[in-house]
């Protein structure tokens, strides 16, 4: 039996990136929502809903980067220099918000600076990730060089376009929505009410961004338009936007009725469907319109060596991640013991 290893690996990386977006998405969103309350106690609760799990959430980002390097080294070594500044900006954001988890609780009563670091870091990292997505969709200017690799030919700020700014702001809203619906689920009282009302506004904003990206991408890229609107794809792919619309309606209804768990589930569904839509648009490129996943793949020996481990370990990882979430289930309330 011949395995299409690059196909399997793109599925694994797609899963890893999606897990990252969902999981670190809600804890970044909690950081973005920090300014919505000035109450130190409420901020403690917000932070405590994610403190035991954020580190595991962020590991999915390292998995994404490392698997890209391991399975598609050519894509990794082409994309990262081209996206140098937004990647670095994202890393700086993640550094400051990451240390804030520990540092903040060590400054009894004087949280101000680490609160700011947590909020600003979350905001900056989220925006940079959205901008990276936009820049990735738009493609990077590279040329082939003698050794078979690619050389970035653009400038340091090529990634910064109206489109990437929009995807950046869009992802900030998306993560904030994930964060707000997470808080609706995991907190109660005044904080939960505040999260509910924030979620309503954010839902509308996210829907607007999803709509704009969905129209802008095919409009700017005829091949993508061709893929979505040509017959019979139009019918085959229609379930994606229709299901997204349905999820949005259920989300709004759940928020209006004050349901606790449904908003988070529906927001995740919205992310999943948007992600599926992107996958349809970008398939089968590892670097849009430069190299496909088969061009970028490392030799079968490398992909197989890694796959053997990942096939065994990924289910184990998912199992203990699930266990860890179960240990910390339930409403988080003020004064819930920090270590």
């Amino acid at each position: 039996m011949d395995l299409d290893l690059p196909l399997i690996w793109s599925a694994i990386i797609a899963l890893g990136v999606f897990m990252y977006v969902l999981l670190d998405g809600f804890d970044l969103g909690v950081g973005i929502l920090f300014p919505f309350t000035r109450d130190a106690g409420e901020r403690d609760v917000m932070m405590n809903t994610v403190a035991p799990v954020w580190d595991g959430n962020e590991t999915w980002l390292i998995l994404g980067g490392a698997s890209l390097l391991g399975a598609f080294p050519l894509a990794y070594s082409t994309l990262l220099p081209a996206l140098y500044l937004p990647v670095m900006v994202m890393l700086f954001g993640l550094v400051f918000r990451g240390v804030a988890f520990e540092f903040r609780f060590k400054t009894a009563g004087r949280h101000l600076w680490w609160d700011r670091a947590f909020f600003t870091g979350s905001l900056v990292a989220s925006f940079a990730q959205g901008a990276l997505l936009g820049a990735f969709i738009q493609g990077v200017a590279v040329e082939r060089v003698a050794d078979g690799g690619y050389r970035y030919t653009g400038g340091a700020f090529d990634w910064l376009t109206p489109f990437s700014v929009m995807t950046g702001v869009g992802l900030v809203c998306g993560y904030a929505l994930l964060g707000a619906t997470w808080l609706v689920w995991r907190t109660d009282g005044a904080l939960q009410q505040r999260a509910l009302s924030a979620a309503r506004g954010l839902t509308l904003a996210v829907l607007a961004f999803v709509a704009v990206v969905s129209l802008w991408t095919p409009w700017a890229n005829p091949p993508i338009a061709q893929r979505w609107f040509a017959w019979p794809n139009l019918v085959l792919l229609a379930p994606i936007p229709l299901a997204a619309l349905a999820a949005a309606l259920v989300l709004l209804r759940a928020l209006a009725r004050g349901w606790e768990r449904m908003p988070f589930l529906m927001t995740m569904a919205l992310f999943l469907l948007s992600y599926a839509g992107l996958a349809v648009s970008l398939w089968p490129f590892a670097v849009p319109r430069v190299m496909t996943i088969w061009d970028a793949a490392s030799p079968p020996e490398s992909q197989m060596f890694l796959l053997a481990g990942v096939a065994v370990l990924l289910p184990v990882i998912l199992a203990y991640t699930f266990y860890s979430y179960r240990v910390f289930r339930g409403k988080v309330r003020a004064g819930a013991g920090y270590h």
Partner: protein
Amino acid sequence: MDALLLSRLQFAFTIGFHILFPTLTIGLGLFLVVLEGLWLKRRDPGIYRMLRFWTRVFALAFGVGVVSGLVLSYQLGTNWGRFTAVTGNVLGPLISYEVVTAFFLEAGFLGIMLFGWNRVPPKIHYLSTILVAVGTLISTFWILSANSWMHTPAGFAMDGERMVVTDWMAVVFNPSFPYRLAHMVVATLVATAFLVAGVGAWCVLRDRHRDFGRRSLSFALGMAAVAAPLQVLVGDLHGLNTLEHQPAKVAAMEGHWNAHDGPAPFILFALPDQAAGRNRAEIAIPYAGSLILTHSLSGAVPTLAAVAPQDRPPVAVVFWAFRLMVGLGLWFVVLAGIGLYARRRYALTQWRWYLRLLAGTAPLGFVAVLAGWVVTEAGRQPWLVYGHLRTADGVSLVPAESVAVTFGLFILAYGVLLAAFLAFFLRMVARGPGDADDPPHFQNKAKAAVVEEG
């Protein structure tokens, strides 16, 4: 400055910063496993207080280690794109294995280890502590395998400009890997032991948290008594391995430019002059060079003369970093030896001069780790993959300005982080273990008393 030099400085800076924190978490992780085991067995409140205190330090270091490690995993691509293009087939899977075998394990159980005391049974909690410590060791395994492969590459072939793997076992267990791994793991134990001992000594000297201080001191010196001499042995073995595979590095460590007539001396101090290809102002011990390197009085030692000038590592850097590392290593052995003697005389908390030395030594294990890292990495120059890929051929083609700006930001950001880390750490030490660090049944009793009074 060009992008190459800036990228080298930036990488050296960011990895030098990062390496401090895994050093602490690997060593402390093992430390906590022993402590929690003792607590479960003996139910001694003093051990529990120590456990909780050092767990907080672990958490602080872990947080900084995670985020600075995340930076490194992406810097390989941003700053060293051509390096990853050439070596990605080999190193990519090793790093991916680190993520799936170690990072997830650490992250998955760290939450339970830090916040799960009242949510899981004691045995599950202990299992979490063990898994976190095991995770840090697995992580060390993979990252040192990848690093060692860059020093002693094996198990690959060139396919055009790219490397492809012919034998994974040879890649992972490359010739210098076992020695480098052992040297690093023991280094984390030594560095952690002297940090903990230093904190304990400080507490005893200041007469604060005396019980906690005495116990930390005693426990850590026990660890140091094993680890510090062991490190001399492991370091010697690693040195012999380097002699076999990277003679130019050893020649730079020893400061031998030209062949000696007869037995080689050990050069204690010198001012290596790279341009002139010789040492200025040498102080040397006859025969000792041959003795240390070849374990005989007459063996020949490697020289830099055998290496073309453009293939030589920066000798002065390697030479001095090596002396700093070895000097500190010997100092640790002396201190650990005094500790053993003091323990026999029941004077561990009595000799104030010794406690002062220990308090002053607290950060030096980390200095030794950094010095050792400089020896091994600067000694590899001018190669990224020894003998196969030059550092200059691995750098990304990014504008020097981008690297310069981000480098400046790294210095600023990491400066703030290190200052904050140290401030928090020192404050934690000054406060010592608090009421919250009393064993659970103590706390419940205290609460019960409050309820009764109210």
